[in-house]
């Protein structure tokens, strides 16, 4: 439309400087334009306005759609899974309006488990949620099906939904995607994850290496030793430390074996006569060998004590105990865990070494020892909670809740299984008393852990103080809303 550009060009500089000429206008308008030009009642500005108005109408009246035979859009392939029910879709809409990522994740998990897809109208909002919250990406991609994969081709922010295999994602994904897929593979197939990492190790930078090693702790085993030993010779201090730290978690690693050998010589269980030789008792003896290999102090063992309660030798032994699997003591003393714990607790130095035993138990994830320590130790150790069976976790969490409320809540929110009603009640009573420390987002964030039957107990969590009571009443309404959405999700996928 060159004529319209000519009109604009004239308008830009003004009729004072230039008037549009006939050859700048379409021939179809010539007759009308000459009539305008002949009108001596109006000045050149009005003549231009009339020509512009005429050209505008000519332009608008002559619009034709663009004809392009070759422009096509490859349609989305047919879905292989079925769509979710209308009720499930409605719950999803309600969840989206609540902005609760855990509830959204919960909904997506149910849909994935039932091999169902979200209806197309909600795919853009789910892909947008996935783009914002990386942890949802894989679930979003699965639940958006072929349509989501097709749609994401047109928006680079949504490219996470492109249906790539885990290995493709590992090789070509974003750093966040690679970490996620590496974590998942380390859980499902630890050796495959190790092989992947070994293949790309040389190309990764130090920070990435350290980040992957952090994830490598999942399902760590003897098979990882040779890779970790080579990683422990890396130039980067960060990578080196991370690799050595991981090696120390493997009982058969050379460094752990070395520590065990040192401990075999340093801690002895001796039978001593008691009551003028009428009876005997088992006594623990702690003493470092006369010569200790100085190289051990290059593996992270400190030579000097930083605690007044420990002598330097005791401190070295403490660190060694902390770094060997607790099962070592069973073979060293030829006794069961309960007896070992008793021996340590009865001895004045042994008692000081108890925290080291607890750390070792947590380090080597020894569930049997965790259970024994929890039951037979004089002190309750929070770090052992994750290693206990769910029932025992619940038992100890409830038993020691009044003593360590914040620690227990901190641990409880990391759980993957729903809390019991009793534990939830304990947590809620604490929250109701401390409303300023726990905002609404706490409930939204951990709704997947909150059991539905707690609804009946909410009133019992009400604090006596009037001002707290009102706050708890409002919070209760919010909790009920979240739980209702959770229950509706379950119902929608199981009806």
């Amino acid at each position, binding site marked *: 439309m060159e004529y*319209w550009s000519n*009109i*604009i060009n004239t*308008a*830009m*500089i*003004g*009729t*004072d*400087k230039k008037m549009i000429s006939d050859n700048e206008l379409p021939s179809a308008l010539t007759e009308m334009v000459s009539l305008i030009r002949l009108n001596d009642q109006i*000045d050149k*500005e*009005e003549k*231009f*306005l*009339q020509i*512009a*108005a005429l050209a*505008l*109408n000519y*332009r*608008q*009246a*002559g*619009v*034709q*759609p*663009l*004809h*392009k*035979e070759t*422009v*096509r*859009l*490859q*349609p*989305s392939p047919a879905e292989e899974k079925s769509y979710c029910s209308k009720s499930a879709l*409605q719950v999803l*809409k*309600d969840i989206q*309006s*609540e902005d609760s990522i855990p509830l959204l994740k919960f909904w997506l998990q149910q849909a994935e488990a039932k091999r169902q897809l979200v209806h*197309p*109208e909600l*795919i*853009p909002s789910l892909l947008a949620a996935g783009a914002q919250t990386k942890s949802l990406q894989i679930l979003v991609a699965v639940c958006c099906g072929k*349509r989501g994969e*097709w*749609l994401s081709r*047109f*928006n680079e922010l949504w490219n996470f939904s492109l249906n790539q295999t885990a290995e493709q994602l590992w090789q070509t994904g974003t750093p966040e995607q690679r970490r996620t897929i590496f974590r998942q593979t380390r859980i499902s197939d630890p050796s495959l994850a190790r092989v992947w990492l070994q293949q790309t190790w040389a190309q990764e930078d130090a920070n990435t290496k350290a980040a992957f090693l952090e994830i490598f702790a999942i399902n760590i085993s003897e098979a990882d030793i040779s890779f970790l030993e080579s990683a422990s010779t890396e130039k980067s201090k960060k990578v080196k430390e991370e690799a050595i730290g991981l090696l120390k978690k493997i009982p058969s690693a050379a460094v752990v074996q070395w520590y065990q050998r040192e401990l075999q010589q340093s801690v002895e269980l001796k039978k001593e006569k008691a009551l003028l030789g009428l009876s005997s008792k088992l006594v623990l003896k702690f003493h470092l060998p006369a010569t200790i290999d100085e190289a051990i102090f290059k593996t992270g063992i400190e030579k000097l004590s930083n605690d007044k309660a420990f002598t330097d030798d005791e401190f070295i032994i403490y660190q060694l105990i902390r770094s060997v699997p607790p099962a070592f003591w069973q073979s060293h003393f030829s006794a069961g865990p309960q007896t070992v714990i008793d021996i340590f607790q009865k001895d004045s130095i042994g008692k000081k070494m108890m925290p080291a035993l607890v750390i070792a138990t947590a380090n080597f994830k020894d569930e049997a020892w965790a259970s024994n320590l929890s039951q037979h130790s004089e002190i309750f150790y929070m770090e052992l909670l994750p290693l206990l069976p769910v029932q025992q976790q619940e038992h100890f969490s409830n038993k020691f809740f009044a003593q360590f409320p914040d620690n227990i809540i901190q641990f409880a929110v990391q759980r993957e299984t729903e809390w019991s009603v009793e534990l939830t009640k304990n947590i809620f009573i604490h929250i109701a008393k401390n409303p300023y420390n726990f905002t609404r987002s706490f409930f939204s964030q951990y709704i997947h852990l909150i059991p539905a039957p707690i609804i009946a107990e909410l009133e019992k969590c009400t604090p006596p103080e009037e001002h707290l009571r009102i706050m708890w009443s409002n919070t209760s*309404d919010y909790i009920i*809303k979240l739980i*209702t959405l959770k229950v509706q999700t379950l119902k929608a996928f199981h009806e």
Partner: protein
Amino acid sequence: MPFTEDQILALAPDEASKKSGKDLANPSKWVSKGANEQVLWGEAQGSGSKPYQTQIDLQQIAFKCSCPSRKFPCKHGLGLMLFYSRQQKDFTSRDAPLWVTDWLSKRTEKDEKKVSREEKPVDKAAQAKRQQARQQKISDGIAELRLWLKDIIRNGILNIPDKGFGYFENMAKRMVDAQAPGLANMIRGAGDCNFYSEGWQSAFMDQLAAIYLVIEGYTNKAHLNEPAQQDIKTWIGFTQSQEELKVQAGITDTWLVLSKQSIEVDTITTERNWLYGTQSNKYALVLQFIVSGQGGQLTFTPGMFVQAELAFYPSIAPLRAIVKTQTATNSAAHFTVFQNWQQVTETETQLCAEMPVRNERPFIIQQLIPVQFNNQWWLQDEDKKMMQLKNEHKSIWKLLALSGGEAMNMAVIGKEDKYEPVGVWYKNEYKTL
């Protein structure tokens, strides 16, 4: 009740009302409830000692609630409607209590009063005098506006972006004084051009030419036919008496609400309801102005079929209308649509010949596919002809997701060479975008 949950939620005045409404769509919140073909009612336990009485006229979609909320409809109205749409079978009571029947009869009385008020005689002489005085004011205002336009054209539009808000606002205010508020809006429209975007010059010149056409049309109105004169008067800013409109014969039809667009300026919300008459094959634009805190008369939600009589404002191509009577809400009806873009452009060309100045119009076009060409999105018909999408960022993703690259019947609003999709038929259900 033929409303989907989305349609009910589209009635909500804001997001907070939607959320609260959803919370109230729960049996535990309602002390009593009931429904029949005409009305839906319920008593919601609020924070007060007495429950709030909520009632909804299902025929004309009107809400009433005894709660103190200034929002309209309030959360109780929305909650009750959502609750009913989810669990109709729980509404076992069919006999409306006294407070409901009272409200319904008051509504009928009000309608009757309106009719009697409409019948009051008008002082024609005084009216003619007022009109004459106004015409003089407008003519004076137009003379000034003409000078202003010519001044711009003489000096060129190159420096217009530097003129600032006041340059346009002063002339707009002058037009308000001249009792030509329509022209004032057109001048503000010219000032609102996005001077930072590429091609602002064309949009600005379009607006200048349109203003010039209107003032020329008004000056030469004696040579125009009656409908064209009415269109010009509308552009100038003459209001049309709604009472007079209501006296005229309207078009009774089952109207499909294609889209509801709301714009809030200061404290007034302007609702633009785009309707399509399924039997008459006519399109309508019903405007509603809502002052903040007050409820509107009409409660339309996209996708809803309304049995109503619409009275159209006189025009060469009538589009703007008022609802004369609304009798019921219906379920889906069959209708015909534009076959392709060629038909749309032919209609537009026809309109151009008759109405050189006009706004966007709605069209329902069959089997359009969104396609990408030159990094822009277009809507392609079965003949491979296409038009560019307007405001593509607003609707493209939902449109693409629903379409999946397949053709769909689509409602669009636009003119010339750009159209904004506002709704599609997905599996025989109308979905707004």
